[in-house]
């Protein structure tokens, strides 16, 4: 488990830079991932995706499947890639503090 220091905070991260626990998520983490993902400025649409992911995760203990994410936000997958260049998993879920899914995925 590696550690990242950013704006006075320390985050534990895995090999792919995902945060060690959703409980340690905070807005500084979003700023950190934003910079590393090369997103200049977050707009309302970015935040909408982040909030949908987090709400679903709080309720269900897992990220929503991509099809639920696109349906609930109303954004097509292509547009989510425009918002988060690394995609819904490696970009948006990472920023929202969710863990990576495992198994036959």
């Amino acid at each position, binding site marked *: *488990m590696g550690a990242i220091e950013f704006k006075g905070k320390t985050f534990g991260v*895995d*090999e*792919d830079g995902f945060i060690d626990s959703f409980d340690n998520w905070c807005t500084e983490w979003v700023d950190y991932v934003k910079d590393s993902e090369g997103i200049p400025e977050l707009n309302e649409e970015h935040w909408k995706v982040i909030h949908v992911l987090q709400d679903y995760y709080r309720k*269900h*203990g*897992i990220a929503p*499947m*991509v*099809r*639920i994410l*696109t*349906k609930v936000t109303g954004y*097509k*997958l*292509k547009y989510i890639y425009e918002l988060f260049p690394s995609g819904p998993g*490696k970009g948006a879920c990472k920023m929202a503090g969710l863990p*990576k*899914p*495992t*198994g*036959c*995925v």
Partner: protein
Amino acid sequence: MANVPKPDQLAKIDHRPPQQGWMETPVEFKPGNYLYACKPHNLEILGLPNPREWRPEEDDWKLPANWQEILLDGMKERLEKFRSFKLFMDICVRCGACADKCHFFIGTGDPKNMPVLRAELLRSVYRGNFTTFGRMFKKYSGGRELTEKVLKEWFYYLFQCSECRRCSVFCPYGIDTAEVTIIGRELLNLIGCNVDWVAAPAANCFRTGNHLGIQPHAFKDMMDFFVDEIEEVTGVRVEPSLNRKGAEILFVTPSGDVFADPGTYTLMGYLMLFHEIGLDYTWSTYASEGGNFGFFTSHETMKRLNAKMYAEAKRLGVKYIIGGECGHMWRVINQYMETMNGPADFLEVPKSPITGTVFDNASATKMIHIVEFTADLIKHGKLKLDPSRNDKLRVTYHDSCNPARGMGLLEEPRYVIKNVCNNFFEMPENTIRERTFCCGSGAGLNAGEYLEMRMRGGLPRANAVKHVHDKHGVNMLSCICAIDRAVLPALMDYWVPDVGVTGVHELVGNALVMEGEKQRTTDLRSEPLPGFEEEDDEDL
């Protein structure tokens, strides 16, 4: 995560062996060629030894002080317990028939990916420690000591084998190198040297019922979503039940189908089919996983995960189990279940309630594959099908390794596909049926950090797809395994862009004419059917 070289770079593969001998060639852990180490909490959940933080690329693997003793004792125990292992250690004559049959050898050019040499990694230690000749003459008899260098070699190459068993088809002695890999990985687990992409799903499955860790309420939420989606496409509202006691049949499929595209469309196909024939069946949120990542860990872990399906079948009082389009589940069921968790004498020999067909082939396991079930329905004319709905697809079929080589399911998928699609084309014969090439990511190798090696291992499969893509315009690769559905899209994007990936029951769902359905204008992916293109031309 490592960057993957471009296809034209990766395709330059040097098959010449290194100058020095194989025992003198150490492994080098580089980003993209190894999998991340198992996290301690996942080993703790499974009760496996030596949970700790470690990294394969670091020198110190934080091994127990007596790790050699543990491994050699473990090897001795398994030589006595598994006659197959003892036989495979003794019998190889190094004829070389297997040498060029492994997709990882073809894609890497690394001689230690020749099945004969992969097995030799263990065999040399066996010879050096357990045979009189080997103990006396060590290196001159091909034996060697178990050093840390050897251990690292085991880890590197045993997780560069997808246990697909293509090599065993060509071995004149029938040596099953996957069995050697399985024992090798089991030994590594004795000292806590697993990869997290195997340990995490196995721990999730043990704890919550499936590899993804989907809890019961989330599982229900996902099913509800599919029910809505099916209604949007067909106008028919299906009503699946969960954990229903007294149902005739329990249905189990990989959790990948519940969560990840394109498997989710295949799952919609299952739901539609079962609704249409009025099957008295239930899903389970406890036995909510077909796949078995325990199989990639140890016999004991495999057994514990497999037991859940049968425990649930017993609890619910069903007559038998239908399994979905899963890969490794079927190897576990057909080759280990009976002596491992069996006998399943509280269940009945599967009999189709629609056609009356008795599946004697499943008289021991009490579990049939959905593709044989569907093939039987079609054979008896029980389904109304409109294959023209799949007319924009030019389909080929990837024999998923385990249903093909592990249970001999070769004709049924083809029969189903040909009845639901008008355009079907086979790949070259040395790449299909029992000689099928692996997707390159089976046996728990389908992690993101391993992409370069996966693209190498998948090259022979992709090459065969490219052949039919160029020759016949094939644009859809069908398969019956959830790992396939997860990894083949990336493989196609990399080597053969413009070819999509589907499960067989997605094709069935598209072609299935349902009672009371509205006029369908889209397929299950909400893309327009042939003749309705003008209504919606935007891609998701």
